């Protein structure tokens, strides 16, 4: 079987891991994987899908860069009777246009992070700073929304500063430095919520350099569960992370196999678990388990 995989790009370690795992999974099951890197561009993804269709692949995996704008190309795939599986991000097209979507609920991830923080601070006052992802990207929008959903109605927890760190370590670090400056050298900050682990890791360095203890003076919760955050957790410098598994291809291939075998329609959304990890979950072991997955 030939499967076309249109990946967004390679903008983060997490995505590199997803690509690696997808390749691994395809190899294990004996599929030929046609890989296409879209370099962050929807137009490249659409073009890639069209080329896959022209080539006549047996199935298409796509990690859509953005939710909108897939109707017509999905329709083309359907007319060519090629099943499409969405990975890790949703689209807002009608769900008969694709076989299924594998992924986590990004809003839910934010909620998990927010709820952890609520549990952690109880009734105490907590001024939170937020490091957002790339402005306009769907994880940034949804993770911001989820966190706000969780803390709504809890007047003691308040987001006081929010700025984009572009999902990068460097962005996380430099924005955090400014946050610290702006909030009385960090005294007025109780917790940091970062839309991904990389920004949190950058922020941790900034906090350390400002002479504060990350994880204690400022609580840190972020999303993704990449290996390095477990290292930080093991060192007591980060408090919690919400897992977004890079193994989206596994469930996707399972669903495809069933579909190829006898036309079984899977559920329209196969949700991966958004598991919360804290310092209590043996972060050192988690690090060891993940460090070779291509993050």
């Amino acid at each position, binding site marked *: 079987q030939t499967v076309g995989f249109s990946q967004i790009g390679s903008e983060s370690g997490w*995505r590199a891991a997803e*690509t690696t795992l997808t390749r691994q999974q395809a190899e294990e099951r004996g599929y030929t994987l046609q890989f296409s890197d879209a370099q962050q561009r929807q137009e490249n993804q659409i073009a890639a899908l069209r080329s896959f269709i022209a080539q006549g692949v047996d199935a298409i995996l796509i990690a859509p860069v953005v939710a909108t704008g897939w109707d017509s190309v999905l329709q083309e795939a359907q007319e060519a009777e090629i099943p499409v599986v969405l990975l890790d991000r949703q689209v807002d097209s009608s769900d008969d246009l694709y076989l299924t979507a594998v992924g986590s609920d990004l809003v839910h991830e934010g909620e998990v992070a927010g709820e952890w923080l609520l549990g952690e601070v109880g009734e105490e006052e907590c001024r939170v700073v937020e490091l957002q992802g790339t402005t306009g990207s769907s994880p940034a929008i949804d993770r911001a929304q989820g966190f706000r959903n969780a803390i709504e109605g809890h007047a003691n927890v308040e987001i006081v500063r*929010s700025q984009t760190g572009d999902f990068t370590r460097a962005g996380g670090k430099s924005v955090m430095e400014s946050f610290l*400056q*702006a909030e009385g050298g960090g005294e007025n900050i109780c917790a940091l919520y970062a839309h991904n682990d990389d920004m949190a890791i950058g922020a941790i360095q900034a906090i350390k350099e400002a002479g504060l203890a990350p994880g204690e003076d400022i609580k840190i919760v972020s999303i993704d569960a990449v290996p*390095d955050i477990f290292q930080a957790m093991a060192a007591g410098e980060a408090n919690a992370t919400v897992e977004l598994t890079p193994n989206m291809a596994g469930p996707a291939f399972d669903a495809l196999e069933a579909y190829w075998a006898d036309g079984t329609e899977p559920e329209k959304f196969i949700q991966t678990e958004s598991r919360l990890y804290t310092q209590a979950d043996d972060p050192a072991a988690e690090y060891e388990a993940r460090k070779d997955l291509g*993050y």
Partner: protein
Amino acid sequence: MIRSLQRITPQLLTLAALVALVTLFFPNFISISYDGARFVGPIVDVLKRSAPVALLAVGMTLVIATRGIDLSVGTVMAIAGAVAAYAITSGFGLPATLALALLAGLAAGLWNGCLVALIGIQPIVATLILMTAGRGIAQLITEGRILTFSNNDFAFIGSGTVYGMPFPTILWLATAILVAALMRRTALGLLIEATGINRAASALAGVNATVILIAVYMASGFCAALAGIVATADIRGADANNAGLWLELDAILAVVIGGNSLLGGRFSIAGAMIGALIIQTINTGIVLAGFPSEYNLVIKAGLVLVILVMQSPNLSADWFYLKTLISERRTARAERKEAS
């Protein structure tokens, strides 16, 4: 000295105005304190955070002086960072690591320089090629992940302090001063300017224009490598995907805001450095002032436009005209008074 200060007066004024503006929104902006080991304060942050753009701008100034442009510097940062992180994690010592990273930058510059000077490809396109392909090379080295390291000596380059001043600040200041001195104490400055204004005529006058062109691209690569080292050391990891992303545009902007012409010729490294400070002040100011992220670009664009308008050569000609007019009137009046 005084003459060169005079030349960058508009830039200094712009910077001062900008600092005043930010202070308006964030009153603590100009406060600096000493916490026993290091100076702390937004201004110190600006001085530190401007390191990458300032370093890039040093090399970019030279390239632009030859009527070129180097779009690849952001990518070269990523390559150098990846090389450095790779070297340090594979157990090379710090000197060897730095040497390797700088060599990578020089090699990238040599490649650009050859495409421009020997093959004659237009600088924008020639460096666009490395801009695209180079990030792939950097990712090849890191295999797409963030290569972290824990060497404290290396990390010092990014976050250490000397006499309380952040090391990156000292590094970019030193680089700028050294390069500026090299340009003015030797004839390099003149030769670069001549090549930039008229390559054919310079070559006929015996200037080795080809070598000069290659050399400035190598200098740019070298500076980009320095910036890449700083960025990598700063976050203790090489982020091949994001290091220096779109920073080339900031560097070009810094050079131009610094009063250098994109058409080549006369250049001022001091001006470009102030340009870098201006840009970083804008960036930091936006975060400190606490606007939502979606306003960042509009604010930046607006400020940049205002600065460009104020520094436009046409306006300054008008200024000059006005000034001479006023002074002529004044002398005429004085003469009349004397006569009467």
